[in-house]
C-alpha cells in the first residue's frame, strides 16, 4: 500500500493513544514521574479498559487527522476485567485488516501491552512507533474533506 506525502523536516506526527486506566496509563504516568524521555507526538486518551476501544474510535481518530493510533492495555492474563484485552485483540485485529482496504497503511495502527511498572517499555513503544510514522509521513487517506 502506498501512502502519499513525504515527511517534511518540520512536520511532527500526531499520534493518538488509547490507554487503559489500570496498566498502560499508569505505565505512561510512571515514565513521566521517573523522568524517562519519550516523544511528545503522543496524545493519550484514557479508557477504563482496552476492551472499551471501539474500532470506530480508531477510524474516527484517522478521520480527524491522526497520523498513527496506538492502543495499549494490560498484558494478556492481567486485564482488570479479566478478558477485556482478549476481546480488544480480536476486534482490533479485524479493524486492522480493514484498514489495509481503505488504503491507510496498517502499520499506522499498533496494539501493545504495557503494565503499570513498564514506564521504560512505554517510552520505547512510543519512540519506535513515532519513528515508523515519521517514515510514513502524514496520513491523508481518511482525513480528506470528501470522505
Amino acid at each position: 500500500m502506498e501512502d502519499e506525502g513525504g515527511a517534511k523536516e518540520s512536520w511532527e506526527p500526531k499520534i493518538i493513544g488509547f490507554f487503559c486506566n489500570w496498566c498502560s496509563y499508569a505505565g505512561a504516568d510512571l515514565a513521566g514521574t521517573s523522568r524517562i524521555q519519550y516523544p511528545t507526538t503522543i496524545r493519550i486518551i484514557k479508557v477504563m479498559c482496552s476492551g472499551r476501544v471501539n474500532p470506530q474510535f480508531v477510524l474516527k481518530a484517522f478521520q480527524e487527522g491522526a497520523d498513527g493510533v496506538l492502543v495499549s492495555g494490560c498484558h494478556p492474563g492481567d486485564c482488570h476485567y479479566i478478558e477485556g484485552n482478549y476481546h480488544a485483540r480480536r476486534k482490533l485485529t479485524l479493524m486492522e485488516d480493514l484498514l489495509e482496504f481503505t488504503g491507510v497503511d496498517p502499520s499506522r495502527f499498533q496494539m501493545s501491552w504495557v503494565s503499570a511498572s513498564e514506564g521504560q517499555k512505554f517510552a520505547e513503544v512510543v519512540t519506535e512507533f513515532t519513528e515508523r510514522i515519521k517514515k510514513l509521513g502524514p496520513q491523508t487517506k481518511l482525513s480528506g474533506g470528501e470522505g
Partner: protein
Amino acid sequence: MGTYILENEEALKKVLENMLRKGMVEGVMVQTAGESGVFTSIITDPDFISKTAPLAPLFSNNNAVFLQNNGTRNIAVVVKPCEARAINELKKLNQINTDKLVVICADCQGTINPRDGLITEPLTEAKKKELEKDSIPIRKACTVCEHFTPPEVDISIMAIGTTGGYILATDREELLDGLELKAGEIPSGRNAEVEKIRKENLEKKEKMVEELDKKLGSPDTLVEFFKDCIRCDNCRDMCPICYCKQCYFETPLGDLRTDEMLHQAATKGILRIPPDILFYQLTRNIHVAAGCVECGACEEVCPRDIPLLDVWKSITGNVQGLFEYVSGMKRDEPLPLVGFKESELEEVK
C-alpha cells in the same frame, strides 16, 4: 436423518399444506404467484398453498430481515441458502428464536431480481442459457456464490445431483406426520456436482476481488468508489446482519446537525454533505464483516448502483478467513467476536 423423495414442487407444497392443516405451524412464509407478480407472503389458510411458488428463483431482498425478533408463534419459512445462513447468524446473535421457526431451504442455482423478470421454476443450466438469450441477468451475488446448498436448517431440499425431482432431508421427522413420502437417498454424484459449481463460482469471485483490489490499490479510490452514496441507509436497513436497535448513525454522535458539521468542516475548511460517507461504510464493514452472508441484498437495494457486493466479497473472505469461520452455516457455534483464545494473535506484544 430421514431422506425422502419429492417428485416435484407440488410434493413440496403438500409438505407445507400438511404442516398448516395439522397445526404444526400457524403460518408459512413463502413466495406466492399473485395477480400483480410473485412476492413473498405469509399464508395462514392452507387453501392458498396451491398458489405458492416455493422454489421460484427470485430475490429482491433477504427475508431474514423480517424474521428478526420473531414472537412466540410457530411459523415455517421457505428461504434461499443465503437467507437461511442469515437466520442462523441472527440466532447466534440472539435476534431470532429458531425454536419458533421451521426453516425449509432448497439448493439454489441462482436467482434473478423480480424487476428483471418473473420466473417461477427454479433455474437449471438449460434455463440459464435461455435467460442469457433473453438478456435477463442472474444476480451478481449468485454468479459468485459459494454456499448455495442448505446450511443447518430444519428441512433441506436437494436438487443438485438428482435426475429430476428432489430429495428432502430432515432430522425432524415429526414435521412430516401424516404424509406418505417414499424413502429416497442423497444422490451419490451430488457432492462432486456441488463442488464443480462451487469451483466455478469461486473462480469468478476471485476475479471480482482481484479487480476490486486493483482499483482500490491507488490513492483515494475508496472515496471515489462511494462517491455517489447519498446515505439513504437502504443498504443498512435491508442487510440481515446489520441489526442494531439503535444505529450509531442515528445517535447525536453520528447523525450530525449543522453545529457538528461546522466543527468537522473547520478542520479541513470543507466538508462534503451528506457527511461521513466513508465512515458510515467502514463502520458497517466492521460491524458486519464477521457475519455477512454475501447475499447481495445491500447492492440490490442501493439506488445509486454502488457495487457494494464487491466490497463485501473482499472483506468478508479476509475477516472470516482470519477467524476460520464461515457465517451462518451452523446454529450453535461461537461467534468470532464473542469468543477468544488466550493463545492467539500473539504478534501483539
